[in-house]
């Protein structure tokens, strides 16, 4: 199985960088970007298989970014990363989003979810 291509989008630079490095150590082809514009550029240039998306970011909310991405690349599976509860009120995770993890992240839980997302892509 080839390495899964993962893109982390989070304005919390330290968090995104460290998480990216940890996933790299676990054999995921990971890249981290820290704002919405970079995220869109990165996806257009080299679309990932799995996207880890922060729910709250300056400029555009995770939900809006999710909709934008799904428009031009519906095959990307998105796992939301949130400091709130996963069912949090105003910013309900869209039903069609693949999954959701809560900060602070349990790395084993996250890798399982990424693998699951990869499996579902393969099935399709």
């Amino acid at each position, binding site marked *: 199985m080839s390495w899964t291509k993962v893109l982390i989008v989070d304005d919390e630079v330290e968090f995104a960088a*460290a998480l990216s490095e940890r996933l790299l150590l676990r054999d995921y082809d990971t890249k981290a970007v820290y704002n919405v514009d970079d995220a869109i550029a990165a996806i257009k240039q080299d679309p990932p298989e799995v996207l880890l998306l922060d729910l709250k970011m300056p400029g555009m909310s995770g939900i809006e970014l999710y909709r934008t991405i799904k428009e031009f690349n519906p095959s990307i599976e998105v796992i939301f990363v949130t400091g709130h509860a996963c069912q949090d009120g105003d910013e309900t995770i869209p039903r069609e989003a693949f999954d959701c993890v809560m900060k602070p992240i349990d790395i084993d839980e996250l890798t399982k979810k990424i693998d699951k997302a990869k499996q579902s892509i393969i099935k399709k």
Partner: protein
Amino acid sequence: MNRKGDPALTPFMQSILRPFTNIANAITKDRYKSLKLRLFFYIGTLAALPLIGIAMMSYFWVFNILKDEFRAHLRWQIEDSQRSIESFLQEKLSGLRFLANAYSLNELSDDAILHTVFAKFRKEFGEIVDLGLINSEGIQVSYAGPYHLKGREYSNQDWFQEVIIRGVYISDVFTGYRKMPHFAIAVRKEIPGKHAFWVLRATVDVEALNRFLSSIQLKEYDDAFIINKDGILQTSSRFHGKMLERAALKFPVPAQDLSLIDYKQEGGGRLEVGFARIKQSPWVLGMVVQSTASSRMIELFTKDVGTLYLIIILVIIGSIANSIITSSVVNRVQEAEQRREAAIAETEHTSKLASIGRLAAGIAHEINNPLAVINEKAGLMKDILQLIGDFPNKEKFLSIVFSITDSVDRCRTITQRLLGFARRMDVSVEIIDMNETIKEVIGFLDKEILYRNVRLDMNLSENLPKIESDRGLLQQVFLNIANNAIDALKDGGTLAIATGKKDEDTLQVIIGDNGHGIPKEVLKHIFEPFFTTKEKGKGTGLGLSISYGIMQKLGGTILVESEVDKGSTFTVEVPVKASIDLRGL
């Protein structure tokens, strides 16, 4: 991993929350009592004022009418007596004049004829003591009567001078030679053709005057008398002196024909005094009446006991009605205020939970972000340490990193519970069987019940209607309460769970234990977030608070009864059809 909960957070949050409790019981019973008294007094005064006003006005009306009537009566009485006495005197004088005209001087100078005339005169007019004829020189020529007065000389006496001048005369009362009270009347007769005259004189017994006075109807303290111009009493008086003594009057005798005086006594009482002059005599008829209009008023009231009773009964009835009205009004106010207070307390509680929820969510979110950074950095460190080969103190570094990640895990537990508390619970309503729901909850607790040797007493009512509600949320509530109940039990205690119908729209789930019970001062706070009595690390103080919020959301409620050392009973009321309260927490 060792999860110890949030020991530092709980007392801190409690200290923030404590001042907001117990606002409701501020109003005391005394306030309502004084309100009742004031209201009673105001209503009483308002009702009594116009009544008193009307009573006073009518009193003065009646008083004035009585006074006028009284004076009119007095005037009428005194005038009547005055006329009687005057006509009596006139009668006597006319009799004398008739004698003087009917008989000649010579005839009357004869004692025998005079005696005959006197006898007839006395028979006709009565009360005549004697009759005498006096010539121009003032010598008594002839006399008929019980005394021996013939030959007596009157020429230098005042009355003789006056009868010469005025032709007619009535004397003051005197005892004279005869030592018995009487008065004299005299007429002068001219001898035609000569400058000479004679005088016919009769004396009259005072009894005649007394008879007139006694014919005036007098009350106990009233008085009627005749007095002369010098203030000497001509008849005896009840209160103002004896006959022929100076009258002990405190008021002057007026000179008018008729006068009525309203006289104020020193003692405070009032006298009605009337005087009337008697024509052709030196006399004034006096009447002193003590029973004036005001004393008559008092008589009117005190005599009529029935009226007095009626007034007293009316006042009592009025007071009773007043107190009934007052207390019913105040009771209603009290009820309304208590309802309002209860509603305010309820709202306060709910809004407190809501704001605590928002605060908790905010804190949790803010902490989660740096916590995530710590977690990833420590995780990365761990990853790297595990990848590279041995170096000095590697194990030490690894254990340090592990304790960092453990602490982060503990923090995560807290923040996730906080977020769970604050979370807007998504209610998914389905048709559920209450008994099945309970049984599932018991399933979660099986191990605990077995391990703690707790006796489970299930009493599930058959034929409960299916309800529309959120199974997961309800189970969360039952699990919370049942967990608390098991915690409260000693090993071998009893956990009782019963279901039943409260009414057509509400089911009841009763979860009871015979554990240590909840003290009163704790009972007030059990639904507050972060309130816990469990030892540090064992409870977050959020379970009951969340449960309360859930039941609020589902349109139900939680009721508690507890007695120390006897146990606690939680009653969860679940509406058959959940009315979802969308305000949420």
